[in-house]
């Protein structure tokens, strides 16, 4: 059966799984819940593969179909339209594939947690919304998925809702995302205002014909792009809205892996890449994107240098890597950005899952200063994590190398102060490799810094290690699409995406090629530098020192949270409590409601004396009313002739 014609099946399956588990799962044993969840996601993955096969077989012609109308108001139409082109192919495969692996992992990880069915119901629901997001063929439907994944992330961050920190983290994520979504919606409205439609096809087609705006010019496109990017910064945790992501680590580790590393946080990148036509026509916006991305990359990386919590380190690393992706988009290398998105989703999911495995082994311990010397105890996890680390640090021939290299190369070539951005990116790369290897050493080497009598380190079950190995393999080979480019061959990935992004890629050429080689060697050297520094500092016997000076600032994440608390949250709370609650709500609204009630009561008290309870009196009242009404009706005809004109009225 041609899946491509029935694209809706792919998102529908997870939705079904979610519904079944959510409604009936409470009573069921974990086995059934597991089979439902895995079955739905696995099937949807299979469907996605089939759809992609048909897509390739069909000559890679972009597929669009309007399944049914959702909103029709005036000349505005938002339909349930799905589309499948090269970009979507990459996203769908990543979402379903990685999602499926993480589902498998979660069955092992959550086995002994409460609310098993709830967890998987949420997880499937997330899959549904994410697929809607990537498959949508217009901004409105995309926004549905956008909000949906936000909701699921909220639900899953606050999964242990009895823990106050978890609940707060959930709320924080939700509220911070609201700010971004606000911008996103404004962007949508502006686009509709400008193009009279929100279908990707029409919007981009019309936009392509527009005159590109100059740098520093804030035309419609620029503003729209900036607003869209505002949404992206919220969803993808860029400056200044990144603050929710580190706290989001309160959620279960599979969630951190799936939502906050592999898929959801990359939604912003996807949106920017999807609307690349708009961005390429608005260089100012591109510039902003590049700068913000670059800044985020270095900023988060610096914070990541000193974090003690294994998941926090990975979280900041995620933020930083997302910065890389935006940097790529900003300099016009959308292909590179998506490429990094894919590889990153591989190795970052791998890292998170491995971290989860470590935490599992340590019985819930997350502080790296209480680990150490685990390499010999949990070999599989160790090797997988090592693979991930090498990949993210960017050593040949791991996935991270190719994608990051592509980004840095594109940045270097960008005419908008490309060199500077490149330098910053390179530094960020050094930091990356440093904190990753710091993590490795603190966790797996050195002497034990935990109490063996309480903690019994043990390797995780197969259901957890199997996905780890698969992901490790992927993060090794994931980047080889672009490998031939090194010796001047074609870059298969870029070529695959070319139909979408046109020739947004930097032009090749012999000089460019040699330059690329140089740059990649530099990148590898940078990674090595980071590795060496980490080795010098953290191999052997290490102690947690008292943090002072710069270290202290970094340790406290530049006091950003405190800053926000003082500047935004605090005043807002004060305003709400003292004005909106005590004055507006209590005073006006409640006051008016109660006033109406009291008024009614008073009126009733006086009027009720007419209620004799005698039906005949009521009858007379009815008659009086009828007389009045008739009088009003016939007032215009009220003349002496009225009563004698029984025969032949006035006409």
């Amino acid at each position, binding site marked *: 059966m041609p899946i491509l014609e029935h694209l809706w099946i792919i998102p529908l399956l997870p939705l079904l799984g979610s519904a079944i588990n959510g409604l009936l799962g409470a009573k069921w044993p974990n086995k059934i819940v597991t089979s439902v969840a895995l079955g739905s996601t696995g099937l949807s993955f299979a469907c996605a593969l089939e759809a992609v096969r048909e897509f390739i077989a069909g000559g890679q012609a972009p597929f669009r179909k309007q399944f049914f109308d959702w909103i029709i108001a005036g000349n505005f139409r938002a339909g349930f339209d799905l589309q499948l082109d090269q970009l979507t192919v990459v996203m769908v495969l990543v979402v379903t594939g990685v999602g499926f692996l993480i589902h498998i992992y979660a069955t092992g990880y959550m086995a002994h947690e409460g609310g098993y069915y709830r967890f998987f119901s949420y997880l499937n629901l997330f899959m549904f919304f994410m697929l809607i997001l990537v498959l949508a063929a217009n901004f409105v439907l995309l926004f549905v998925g956008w909000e949906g994944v936000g909701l699921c992330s909220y639900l899953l961050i606050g999964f242990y809702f009895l823990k106050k920190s978890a609940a707060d983290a959930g709320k924080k994520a939700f509220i911070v995302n609201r700010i971004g979504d606000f911008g996103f919606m404004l962007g949508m409205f502006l686009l509709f205002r400008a193009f009279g439609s929100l279908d990707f096809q029409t919007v981009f087609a019309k936009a392509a014909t527009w005159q590109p705006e100059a740098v520093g010019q804030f035309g419609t496109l620029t503003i729209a792009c900036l607003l869209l990017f505002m949404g992206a910064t919220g969803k993808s945790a860029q400056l200044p809205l990144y603050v929710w992501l580190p706290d989001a680590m309160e959620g279960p580790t599979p969630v951190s892996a799936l939502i906050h590393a592999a898929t959801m946080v990359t939604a912003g990148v996807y949106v920017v890449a999807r609307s690349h036509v708009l961005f390429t026509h608005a260089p100012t916006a591109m510039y902003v994107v590049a700068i913000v991305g670059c800044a985020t990359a270095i900023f988060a990386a610096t914070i990541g240098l000193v974090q003690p919590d294994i998941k926090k380190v990975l979280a900041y690393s995620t933020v930083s890597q997302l910065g890389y992706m935006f940097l790529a988009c900003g300099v016009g290398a959308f292909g590179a950005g998506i490429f990094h998105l894919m590889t990153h989703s591989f190795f970052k999911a791998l890292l998170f899952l491995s971290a989860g495995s470590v935490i599992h082994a340590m019985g819930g311990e997350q502080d790296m200063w209480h680990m150490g010397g685990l390499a010999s105890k949990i070999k599989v996890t160790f090797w997988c994590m090592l693979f991930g680390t090498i990949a993210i640090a960017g050593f040949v021939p791991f996935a991270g190398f190719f994608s990051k290299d592509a980004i840095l190369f594109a940045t270097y070539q960008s005419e908008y102060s490309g060199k500077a951005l490149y330098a910053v990116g390179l530094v960020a790369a050094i930091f990356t490799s440093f904190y990753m290897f710091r993590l490795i050493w603190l966790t797996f080497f050195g002497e034990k810094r935990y109490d063996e009598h309480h903690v019994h380190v043990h390797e995780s079950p197969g259901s957890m290690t199997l996905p780890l190995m698969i992901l490790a393999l992927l993060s090794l080979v994931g980047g080889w699409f672009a490998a031939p480019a090194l010796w001047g061959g074609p870059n298969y990935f870029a070529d695959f995406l070319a139909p979408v992004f046109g020739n947004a890629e930097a032009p090749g050429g012999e000089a460019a090629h040699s330059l690329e080689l140089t740059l990649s060697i530099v990148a590898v050297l940078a990674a090595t530098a980071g590795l060496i520094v980490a080795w010098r500092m953290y191999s052997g016997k290490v102690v947690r020192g008292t943090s002072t000076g710069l270290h202290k600032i970094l340790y406290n994440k530049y006091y950003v949270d405190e800053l926000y608390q003082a500047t935004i949250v605090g005043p807002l709370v004060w305003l709400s409590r003292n004005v909106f609650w005590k004055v507006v709500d209590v005073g006006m609204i409640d006051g008016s409601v109660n006033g109406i009630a009291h008024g009614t009561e008073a009126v009733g008290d006086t009027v009720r004396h007419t209620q004799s309870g*005698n039906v005949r009196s009521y009858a*007379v009242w009815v008659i009086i009313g009828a007389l009045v009404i*008739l009088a009003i009706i016939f007032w215009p005809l009220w003349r002496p002739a009225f009563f004698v004109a029984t025969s032949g*009225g006035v006409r």
Partner: protein
Amino acid sequence: MTAPLIIFFVLAAVAVFGAVSLILQKHPIHSALSLIVVMVALAGLYLLMGAEFVAAVQIIVYGGAIMVLFVFVIMLLNAGEEERTNLSRLATYAGIPLALALAGFIAAAIARSGGYLPAPAPNGALTSTKTLSMLLFTEFVYPFELTSFLILVAILGAIVLAQREN
């Protein structure tokens, strides 16, 4: 003075007489009987206008079902003569005049509105049962179904009211 006119006046007189006696009779049964007289007279008028089906239905349903229910209930409750109490001052003094005023008002209004209309002619094709049923099942099918629901509800209500709580 043509035959239809004579018939009309006879029937009208009967109807009015029945209505008046409905008011004047002291015993509910007699009131009911006078009301039946009114209804039969009206049925005659319908026939005079050529609305046979309505006339038949008028007698079957009104005369044969509804009024029978009234009589039945009156017998069941063994209602005696009504006591002419005057507990409602309003009704006692203002009631009848106001009622008459309203009646005159309506009469004037209706008469005036009907003055220019042609005289109703018995038209078989117009009011044949076929026409009515066609109309009932095509144009008015929705209200028709609604009335069926209404009847269902009424039946349920009657049953609920009738059963003794136990």
